[in-house]
């Protein structure tokens, strides 16, 4: 692959970076997330986590269903502090 393949668009993480860590023995999605930041951006991992899981499955020989995924964290999509501070009183 001549051009970098972007796995995580939020944090600009490439497939090559993911595979480098997999080859070093970081074979849990949580480990990849913590070292590369993929899944920590505004999309909350919607784009990258399925691809990461696929890479982990391929590297470890596990089935995709056996690959553990990180917890989903609110708020799901980015919300400004101003909007949150207005809170429930702004309904």
């Amino acid at each position: 692959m001549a051009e970098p393949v972007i796995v995580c668009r939020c944090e600009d993480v490439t497939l090559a970076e993911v595979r480098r860590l997999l080859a070093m023995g970081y074979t849990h999605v949580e480990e990849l997330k913590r070292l590369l930041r993929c899944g920590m951006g505004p999309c909350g991992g919607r784009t990258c986590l399925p691809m990461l899981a696929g890479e982990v499955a391929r590297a470890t020989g596990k089935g995709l269903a056996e690959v553990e995924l990180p917890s989903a964290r609110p708020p799901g999509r980015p919300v400004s502090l101003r909007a949150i501070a207005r809170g429930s009183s702004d309904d």
Partner: protein
Amino acid sequence: MTETADVVIVGGGVIGLSIAYNLTRSGAGRVVVCERSNWLGSGSTGRCGAGVRQQWGTEMNCRLAKASIEWFERAEAELDYPDGIEFKQQGYLILAFTAQQVEQFRRNVTLQRSLGIDSHCLAPAECRDIVPYLDTTNLMGGTFCGKDGHINPFRALDAYARAATRGGADIRKGCAVTGIELEGGRVVGVVTSLGPISTPVVVNAAGPWSQVVAAMAGVELPVYSERHQILVTEPVAPAQGPMVISFYHGFYCQQTPHGSFIMGLGDAREPKGFDTGHSWTFLEEVAQTALELLPYLASARVVRQWSGLYNLTPDRQPILGPVAGVIGLYLAVGFSGHGFMLAPVTGEIIAGLITGAEVPVDVRPLNLDRFDRGALIIEPSVV
């Protein structure tokens, strides 16, 4: 044949790995780290705010934190970690909102300066010179130390793990310690989910589960765990150098080198326990506090909230060292929300106590027996 080790460390967080790394450097023999999760730092390390500061209110904490931060300054070279630990050393700005805090902080700074920590007291306008968008309404003063800062906890943990592994430590993920075996008041082994290990030394570095692990050796710890919540925003352009912290509000806020803002808020209503869920109440309250103190952040967008557990002692100081009556058991627990920043010196101390080497700080006052003696060292400056 049962597997044997010279030291078994319970807990693959930053405390356990710092101890493991220091043991491998001092020729402690075969070191095994048991981490019950399938990845390292799954407890408090990977959930922490990762601030590091020397501005403490007790001599012990000042000494421990100063030694740790000086070590963090040279960590990348010492651990041979070219990826970097992202140490942003742009200080902590501690805000005072009451006359009592102004007085306490003045005493703290006098103590800190006597120990070689370069902190100083500030007037409200001087606080705003450091963080221009700080709202100084009701602010009575502050203190600042430019050597405090923030570190990427995942990188620091990984740096320790790689260095410990290179030094020969055996770090096992998915290995839960379920029992500690004693004979005649002496540690002889552990039982784990991956089989028993015969060992004369066990280190309890189990973070929020420290009391559970100690109970396996019949030791009751005067600690409890408590949820603390935190959030992170999208990255924005660099705007804030130091950590801003207010004990009055129980609030702290840091911009990481990545650009995101991290902030947390203590909650006096939080029950004791092991809950690591998240609440809307936290989001609303932390956002209101952030906008009150740092109105510039109003448009910053929150991308994630999570929580982690503090392991709290009655005096908010860690419990370090051996345990009277259980030979071979060592404690590195009860960090009360500031374990990450004390990990470097903790590793040196516990490894030194085990191998008989010189330790950088005499932590006998932090032994478990201080609670029986009533010799607490109460730290006034915690969130």
